[in-house]
């Protein structure tokens, strides 16, 4: 027994000495993916495909975390999509792998590989496996909105998400907000009018408020060229008094909640007052 312990201790000592003398970091850090084909891996896994999916999911997390913390930018999350593809092929119902995977993939470098196209592809794979899971549609909408800045497509995906069974009621208002932000107020109005018919009181209130905000935005857009055509004398600020004196307006215009609009003294830009119930207003692009 003593001989065995001594031999084992010698082996460990030699291992430590060798590791100190000959660094093998390059070999240890090299990321490998021996099997890249999901079809082959499914066969190799026999009936243990779900467990194999867990292993690949842990590998994907470690790969992402490793590259995220690494100062060496050469790797650039090279194996992230293949690992996620293998994970979701082995377990097509692995919701978190699709959803977290899409977030990882869509993040720009150094937070991720900056591949929103692959994020959308991964989520569409999730939809192919579970076509009624509203979360995948929601996440695709989010990628389009947040990473691709495509509010119109985002709104379409939010609406698709809303149509899935069990989808929460707030998705449709979000779709409307996307359209407002993209400048498509007409489509946003159509969606908001539909929401007015919803059975939930809070949704109706939200839709009423959003429609009033759209009216306020329209008024601001109509007023803007009139104000620009009637600038104040040099050295004096833009003001409602000046516009009333000029006969441009008869009184200070109010929004639908009865609170006067505010005018920026230096630029003449019209805004909803912070005292108004319509404040804060949605972010919006130019009207289409």
């Amino acid at each position, binding site marked *: 027994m003593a001989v065995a312990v001594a031999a084992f201790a010698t082996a460990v000592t030699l291992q430590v000495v060798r590791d100190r003398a000959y660094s093998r970091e390059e070999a240890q850090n090299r990321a490998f993916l021996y099997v890249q084909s999901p079809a082959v891996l499914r*066969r190799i896994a*026999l*009936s*243990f*495909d*779900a*467990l194999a*999916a*867990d292993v690949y*999911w*842990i590998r994907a*997390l*470690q790969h992402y975390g490793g590259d995220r913390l690494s100062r060496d930018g050469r790797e650039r999350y090279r194996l992230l999509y293949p690992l996620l593809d293998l994970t979701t092929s082995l*377990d*097509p*119902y692995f*919701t*978190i792998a699709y959803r*977290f995977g899409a977030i990882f993939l869509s993040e720009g470098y150094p937070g991720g590989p900056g591949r929103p196209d692959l994020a959308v592809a991964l989520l569409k794979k999730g939809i192919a496996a579970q076509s009624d899971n509203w979360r995948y549609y929601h996440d695709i909408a989010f990628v389009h909105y947040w990473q691709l800045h495509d509010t119109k497509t985002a709104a379409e995906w939010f609406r698709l998400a809303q149509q899935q069974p069990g989808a929460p009621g707030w998705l449709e208002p979000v779709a409307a907000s996307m359209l407002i932000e993209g400048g498509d107020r007409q489509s946003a109005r159509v969606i908001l009018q539909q929401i007015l018919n919803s059975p939930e009181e809070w949704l109706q209130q939200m839709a009423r408020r959003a429609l009033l905000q759209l009216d306020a935005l329209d008024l601001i857009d109509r007023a803007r060229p009139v104000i620009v055509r009637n600038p104040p004398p040099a050295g004096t600020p833009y003001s409602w008094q000046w516009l009333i004196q000029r006969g441009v307006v008869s009184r200070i215009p109010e929004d639908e909640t009865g609170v006067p609009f505010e005018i920026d003294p230096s630029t003449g830009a019209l805004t909803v007052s912070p005292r108004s119930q319509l404040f804060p207003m949605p972010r919006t692009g130019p009207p289409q």
Partner: protein
Amino acid sequence: MRAISWIAVNVFKESVRDRVPYNLALFAVLLIASSFLIGQLTAGQDVKIIKDLGLAAIVVFGLFIAIFIGIGLVSKEVERRSIYSLLSKPIGRPQFVVGKYAGLVLTLAVNVGVMTVALYAVLGCLTYLQTPAARAAWDAPGVDPRLLEAIGLIFVELMIVTAIALFFSTFSTPLLAAALTFGLFIVGHFNTDLKNFDKIVDSRPAIWVARAVYHTVPDFSAFDIKTEVVHGLPVAAGYLSATAGYGFAYISALLVVSVLVFARRDFK
């Protein structure tokens, strides 16, 4: 019937003497250790992974028991020459084969039962330690009774493997029987490919041969509903009963063939 139960109880006692229950301790340690480790490695998927790991471990441990004890059920008696004293008693050869099979199934049942209790205990602990918000995000409850559906089909699958091992044990050496049983286990998981052979081959005879092999080789892939159960997806009761029924019919056929082969063996 008494002879069968007597042989079965002795097979069970022998497996206890052979320290088979040690695997239960290993299973418990594996689950408990992995539940702590996995919590550090996964993004909130520890319960899902523990379920996957637990079910896979039940298959692996059960498979080892079924193959490595199953292959020696008959051949060991022949090698030790204890078959002579056994068959000189008022025990028929069919009773001997069926008793041996029942004994190993009893061993498997106890093992699978204890592993199931251990899995539920670990899942219960994990569920208790999680916040209600985290629990709400799970596909299925932590302590999900539907896991028993998957475990039930795993048990029937292991019963088939045991019957295959016993069948090979009646006429071949332990090493060959182990190789053949394990080979059939693997082939049985690819069985569905043979069913769809007509989609890739035009030759009628080749399709018939493939279809014949599909019906002859055990269809193990049908017993795998682990993924569905872990994700809380419904599995039709008809599917469960049809698959279990298929398993029992297949086992009966194997036992009958094993009895026939063993009955024709000459031990002189």
